[in-house]
């Protein structure tokens, strides 16, 4: 069994339209499993090209307060790894490439090979691994290859050129440029670190000749910022990754699911216009 639609497919489609892809993140089980699925499908319907589903973890060292709060709410609600896979299945059924973003220990615990098989069966595209670099542990790379899954590793402003090159060579689907030195969270202005990082990453990819797309995570929370990150003469991202702003939108509407989803839809539409405006 091989996995669902690769993220690369969505990047290619966006590229054909001369625009960047919009990639939306929410943790599974937030506000609860069914509500999370509904929220992610709302994001798909309103224009997200790729979905990233967070696997809530007890020790999320790369996340700021917003995503921590949502993940904690999901854990307090009893979300399990199998619920994450169930969420993947429901979202991937829309045909939109769906990845899981996860810290490493839950996958290690589940069994790397078993998780890869179950993720592929659920129609998932692959994994984004914020605390697993390609050189840390080869087990994921082997399992992903076996099941035809995307393996999305991160590069950072502090990465050396040598490490960027190693990381892009090991990635499949896209490479995730975490363009802020800091934890996840919406930011008012885009970072001056993003442009040089994307340029260095694209230079490495050009040498390798793979055409690997570059997704940029930088705390974007509105369409104008998305346009800036996607602008060809600016940062030049192939994909704009938005997480905390989606989570914040749901956190701001506790107990009012309908309005929360409507707000989520409006935010997605604004961001989707942003990535189209950049061209």
């Amino acid at each position, binding site marked *: 069994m091989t996995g669902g639609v690769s993220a690369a497919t969505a990047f290619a489609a966006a590229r054909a339209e001369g625009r960047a892809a919009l990639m939306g993140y929410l943790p599974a089980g937030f506000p609860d499993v069914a509500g999370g699925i509904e929220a992610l499908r709302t994001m798909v319907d309103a224009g997200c090209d790729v979905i990233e589903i967070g696997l809530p973890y007890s020790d999320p060292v790369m996340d700021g307060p917003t995503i921590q709060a949502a993940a904690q709410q999901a854990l307090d609600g009893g979300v399990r790894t199998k619920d994450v896979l169930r969420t993947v299945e429901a979202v991937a059924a829309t045909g939109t490439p769906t990845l899981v973003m996860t810290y490493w220990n*839950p996958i290690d615990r*589940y069994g790397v090979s078993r998780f890869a098989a179950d993720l592929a069966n659920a129609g998932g595209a692959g994994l984004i691994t914020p605390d697993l670099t390609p050189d840390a542990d080869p087990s994921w790379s082997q399992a992903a290859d076996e099941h035809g899954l995307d393996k999305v590793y991160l590069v950072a*402003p502090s990465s050396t050129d040598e490490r960027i090159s190693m990381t892009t060579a090991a990635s499949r689907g896209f490479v995730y440029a975490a363009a802020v030195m800091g934890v996840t969270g919406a930011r008012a202005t885009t970072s001056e670190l993003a442009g040089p990082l994307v340029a260095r990453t694209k230079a490495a990819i050009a040498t390798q000749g793979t055409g690997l797309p570059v997704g940029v995570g930088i705390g974007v929370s509105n369409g104008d910022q998305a346009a800036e990150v996607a602008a060809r003469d600016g940062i030049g991202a192939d994909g704009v990754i938005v997480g905390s702003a989606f989570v914040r939108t749901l956190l701001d509407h506790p107990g009012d699911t309908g309005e929360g989803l409507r707000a989520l839809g409006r935010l997605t539409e604004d961001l989707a216009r942003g990535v189209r405006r950049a061209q």
Partner: protein
Amino acid sequence: MTFDADERGWFGPPTTGFGGRYMPEALVAALDELTAAWLDAMADPSFVAEFEQILREYAGVPSPLYLAERLSDRVGARILLKREDLNHTGAHKIRNVLGQALLTRRMGKTRVIAETGAGQHGVASATAAAYFGLDCTVYMGSVDTKRQALNVARMNLLGAKVVAVDSGSATLKDAINEALRDWVATVDHTAYLFGTAAGPHPFPSMVREFCRGIGDEARAQCLEQYGALPDAVAACVGGGSNAIGLFTAFLDDADVEIFGFEAGGDGVETGRHAATIHAGDRGVLHGARTFVLQDEDGQTIESHSISAGLDYPGVGPQHAHLADAGRATYLPVTDAEAMDAMALLARTEGIIPAIESAHALAGALRLAEERQGQTILVNLSGRGDKDMGTALEYFGLGQADAETGDVE
């Protein structure tokens, strides 16, 4: 047989052994820089000489090796105590922070951050920062800031900023998470003074090297004072810095048995404990593959111990390796056993140990039952001043007629 890590920090074979570096890419460059700077410093005689001079003149090292005669008579084995409780700031932790802070200065960084559980590492870090003139921020779980208020006051007085961490279980592991979040945003000018021999490479090896004076001194002192090596050595194990600091000198002495005592809390059968190696689940926590207290889905389980310094759901990867390789034996000691040992040492020797160290002592007393006449060397890693609040509550002290249990 080597018990050391390879150049990438793996104790035992890569990926099936322990250690490694499971960390965000954003911190890899800093960890590489730290590794190179540390190896360069350790190869520089002037760095090593300055470290030794500061330890000697400022920290009160080497600490004495003391024969606890009344205690020995009572238990029928010769109990030797490595008196790390007499060090400046009251524990072995000062060795590690002075080493790391000296390295920080050498690397040209101006700010240090640290996590702390009981507060001992925080106090030591604040002390080293004051000594070297560095800015210092200490992350401490809000549960711990309440139960160790005196240490918060010490850090304040030393000029450190103490940040109470409310996320997760609001204890040591969450303080580490928050310190890592700080570090990823400030890594260009900030050094993370990691408090134990755990975490990603190079911390397990680097912290061990800064703490290994404990065992190097104790081994030489034992030979000089008693003409022979001990039959067994014992230390408490939370993250495991004092234990690996003691054990390292004895790893190649095949006749010396090595024992680590983990916090058994209410008893391992209750599930409320911090006996990570004893529980035996492998996983990844805070950047290293090691033994981890975790549930079926790999979520970290909150640990429990009366001793804040042992209250950690992971353990240093070299300890995991020593256990796996059979070179060291790790056993749990309950809260009650540790508190009894604390009272016993106070009454027989006039030494009030830290509750952490009382775990090592309680374990050694258990060993003594099977080892009559043998020599057991115990690392008394810290003093008990910080634990008087806990002791007051546990024993019902502070009243004129209070009794400490069955110690006659």
